[in-house]
């Protein structure tokens, strides 16, 4: 299916926080309570529409377990968005966010949009990390923040789509050089010609309008 843009996402965070479940919920709209440990990278993709434009999200679900992260760092390259996930029922996964963030900042482009996700919000009774803590961390580090539940699908769509909206806005504002593949954004064929004019036109939000 044709698309205007392709955004590369990477999902990172400690093992067991629900990265693969978030991906499965977003791409297949289903929840799988038991999931094999991810080794290397697993891929998912889905089309979304923003501002009337078809955008393909190419999502890289990475291994959270340190021992399976052998070349994970190279996967950051060219990511436009990152979902940094912790588990609200495990304080340690929240405590490790700084490390993940440093890793992400170090190996990705500086404009990468990072969405902080506190997952497993359905397990309120076991909560160890307050929502306010997540919000404060996000505010401090310039991240977007949401709490989600891959199990109930709460906020899952929003987390992926809001990240895309942020990237899209950055494109419109000219923050992202969409001709530079290192930014994790690729232009669909129909937009290639349009892009030539957009590249130098960095002002304001583009009005709706469908795909060319």
């Amino acid at each position, binding site marked *: 299916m044709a698309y205007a843009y*392709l955004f590369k996402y990477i999902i990172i965070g400690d093992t067991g926080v629900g990265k693969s479940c978030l991906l499965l919920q977003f791409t297949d709209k289903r929840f799988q309570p038991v999931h094999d440990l991810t*080794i*290397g990278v697993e891929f998912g*993709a889905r089309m979304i529409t923003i501002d009337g434009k078809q955008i393909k999200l*190419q999502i890289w679900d990475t291994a959270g377990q340190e021992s*399976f992260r*052998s070349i994970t760092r190279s996967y950051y390259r*060219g990511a436009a968005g990152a979902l940094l996930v912790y588990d609200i029922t495990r304080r340690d996964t929240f405590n490790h966010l700084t490390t993940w963030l440093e890793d992400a900042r170090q190996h990705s482009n500086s404009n990468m949009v990072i969405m902080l996700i506190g997952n497993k919000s359905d397990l309120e009774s076991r909560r160890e990390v307050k929502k306010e803590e997540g919000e404060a961390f996000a505010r401090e580090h310039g991240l977007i923040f949401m709490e989600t539940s891959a199990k109930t699908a709460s906020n899952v769509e929003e987390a992926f789509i809001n990240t895309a909206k942020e990237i899209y806005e950055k494109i419109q504002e000219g923050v992202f050089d969409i001709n530079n*593949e290192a930014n994790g954004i690729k232009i669909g064929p129909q937009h*290639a010609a349009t892009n030539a004019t957009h590249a130098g036109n960095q002002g304001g939000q583009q009005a709706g309008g469908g795909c060319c």
Partner: protein
Amino acid sequence: MSSIPHRNTWWKSKKTVKVTRSYPTFPSLNAWEEFRGLLPVDREQNPGVTLGVEEGLLCQLLHSPEFNLFPDSVVFESNFVQVKRGRNWIDIYKASNTMALGVTSSVPCLPLPNILLMASVKWHRGQSQTWNRPSTAPNIILKRILPLKFVELQVCDRLQRILRLRTVTEKIYYLKLHPNHPATVFHFWIRLVQILQKGLSITTKDPRILVSHCLVPKNCCSPSGDSKLVQKKPQASQPSESLIRLMAKGESEALSQIFADLHQQNQFSFRSSKKMETKKDSSVKDTSREDEDSIPCTRDLSWRESFTYGEWERENPSGPQPLSLLSTLAASTRPQLAPPIGNSI
């Protein structure tokens, strides 16, 4: 170091056709499939391509602008049917669904592949599942990338041409080589399994030793896909295995006899000649992987001259590598998995 650019030089001479990157803008997968059909058909001289194990669908997907992954590394790949054990092997999915399995290197200069690729392929109804640039590209979706050090690959059933793939997380796949692939292709996989399990006895980091190694011999195959390797050695039912064993033992003299049988008129392409020059120019020893078996192929290596090299080959890094590359070298070392359960070779 002056030797570093040489890697690029020989590589560029190898990749004479930049398949997808020649397209100036980024297409959708469908558009990409469309223009892929317009590719020049001038690669028949490469048996790896002819056999569909090099520059195949998976490689094209990986190197397409959509992924642009490991763009300078060759991909060795084939199509498999996922099966499960029963009284007989049973196909798990419909015949139109296959799995493209491939290996590549995160850095092209690594001596061994360190990445396993898995993609699902959905063929159009009635479409011949051949691997040489089908007129209408099937729907191929990259599913996962696994560092090979987390994977154990075994030959499970030689007669049925089934591989057993086990990850460290104990996920097991039984993969039957698609019947459309000629026997030669399975021999390549056997050879790959052997190399991954035991390494290359001739692996060396000493650039003064002109070691070349290729999974797909340049002159072993007829365009029909049948291997002259097989045809010309009627006394050996599985000559590739013989080659593997012999190679593992460093029996270069015996090999030279075998390769002499395989010798054809076009032994040296311009490409391989350039490569040899490049290697001769290399003078800096790579010290980053000295834990590899550094060896001892000190015997007469002239037999190798009867080979021209396939795209899939190992290459000695000729000079110090950037730090960004060194970090990935660790990925090629294999951990000790539990003893194999299946009938490994």
